[in-house]
């Protein structure tokens, strides 16, 4: 575009606002929404998502790695003394527990980092691909999703369960080569089949779309007469095929129970074990023997 033409185009009082351009852009947005709403997995928007993810995923991983040392600083100051004592105790305990497991120094070092996940892998009884959270969707988008730094290269595929050492985190929505998007169970669109541990009643867990201390889940029990009690533990129910959620992963505990007369179902409020505001190290549940670009934590606690 030549400078002369550009000046004429803008005019002496700034560029004239063109309604035609605005209309065109708004229409483009609307058709994008329609395309995304209509198309399934094969839609052009989904492939565009994949392409953008391949580009932005590694950048997010790099940024998160760069800022990680700084984000840990306040925590370090706050709890250094307490941690030091805890660490001494835990180290003594851990070395005893691990003595039969860790055969090499190398393995022992790696195990130390993934100690919590190792315990999780053991209790769930399946293999975990370790990953770190490198990006979080903002609340302004009203959806609770995070990016993790493990993708299809690490053996992760859509609809796999994501856990951390406290309990259930969510499920994988889509993967790129190096990253994956995870839908958290607190998202308002998330539905998890759940079972109250003590009474074995089944129900559906709905997220509220809120993070932080109000981050609760609503449990709707299928049995109208069943009544969960407070402090009951809730675990995932899981399907036969194991997807999207594997069974028996701890989710949270019951804090309130409501009996609704109008609706024909019991409703209970669940406080999740996982702190969704401070997610970092997570594990993706993968089938045993999955080929991965990193060491997979096997169900017996060893590194594969």
């Amino acid at each position, binding site marked *: 575009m030549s*400078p002369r033409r*550009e*000046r004429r185009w*803008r005019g002496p*009082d*700034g*560029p004239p*606002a*063109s309604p035609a*351009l*605005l209309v065109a*852009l*708004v229409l*483009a*947005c*609307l*058709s*994008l*929404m329609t*395309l*995304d*709403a209509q198309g399934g997995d094969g839609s052009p*928007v989904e492939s*565009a*998502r994949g392409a*953008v*993810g391949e580009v*932005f*995923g590694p*950048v*997010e991983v790099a*940024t*998160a790695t760069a*800022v990680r040392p700084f*984000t840990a600083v306040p925590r370090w100051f706050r709890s250094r003394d307490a941690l030091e004592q805890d660490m001494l105790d835990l180290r003594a305990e851990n070395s005893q527990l691990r003595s039969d497991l860790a055969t090499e120094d190398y393995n022992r070092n790696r195990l130390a980092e993934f100690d919590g996940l190792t315990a999780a892998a053991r209790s769930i009884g399946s293999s975990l691909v370790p990953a770190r959270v*490198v*990006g*979080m*969707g*903002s*609340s*302004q*988008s*009203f959806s609770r*999703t995070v*990016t993790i730094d493990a993708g299809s290269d690490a053996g992760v595929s859509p609809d796999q369960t994501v856990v951390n050492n406290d309990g259930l985190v969510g499920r994988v929505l*889509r993967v*790129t080569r190096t*990253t*994956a*998007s*995870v839908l958290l169970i607190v998202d*308002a*669109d998330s539905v998890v089949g759940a079972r109250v541990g003590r009474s074995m009643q089944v129900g559906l867990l709905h997220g509220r*779309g*809120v*993070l*932080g201390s*109000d981050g609760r889940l609503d449990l709707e029990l299928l049995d109208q007469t069943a009544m969960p009690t407070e402090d009951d533990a809730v675990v995932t129910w899981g399907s036969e095929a194991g997807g999207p959620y594997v069974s028996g992963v701890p989710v949270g505990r019951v804090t309130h129970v409501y009996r609704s007369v109008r609706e024909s179902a019991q409703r209970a409020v669940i406080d999740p074990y996982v702190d969704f*505001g401070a997610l970092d190290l997570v594990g993706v549940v993968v089938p045993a023997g999955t080929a991965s670009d990193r060491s997979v934590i096997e169900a017996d606690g060893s590194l594969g």
Partner: protein
Amino acid sequence: MSWIRALVAFAAVSVALVLQVSLFPHLAWHGIVPNLCLLVVVGAALTRGPQFAAVLGFVAGVALDLAPPADHLAGRWALALVIVGYVAGQVRQGGRHDTRLSATTVVATVAASSFVGTSVFALTGVVLGDPVAIPELLQVIAVAMAWDVLLTPIVLPPVMTLFRRLEPSLA
């Protein structure tokens, strides 16, 4: 060299997007982070007018809609930021473009844009049947506005300088 301008503008949006997704969640309040992409679009609108800002808003919005971990319907942020770019551009349109805007005008524009942007996004969600409660929605809009205004003195001056430099004929 219009393609260099386009490239620099796109780079500014990309940096904003990555910081918004990977750095600011560590400082977030209830997951609400400053909307840096919106600030870049407002900066562009205040220096280069509604045409450019609406197009940049579309690009930034599509990036926000598609980059991981986004999972909402694509096009929603694009629509919100197109409107923000266009509306914020009207502020510059009103005054003469060679006079610098006062700080109060910039902050007021950012606050209004943040309100409009987040509201448009939320409203498209309501229209499309997203299960979001209205009180929570208002709270998110208010906090997001506070964040955006808070970051205005840090983000807007360099962004506006950048876009002014890209436009030597109007400097």
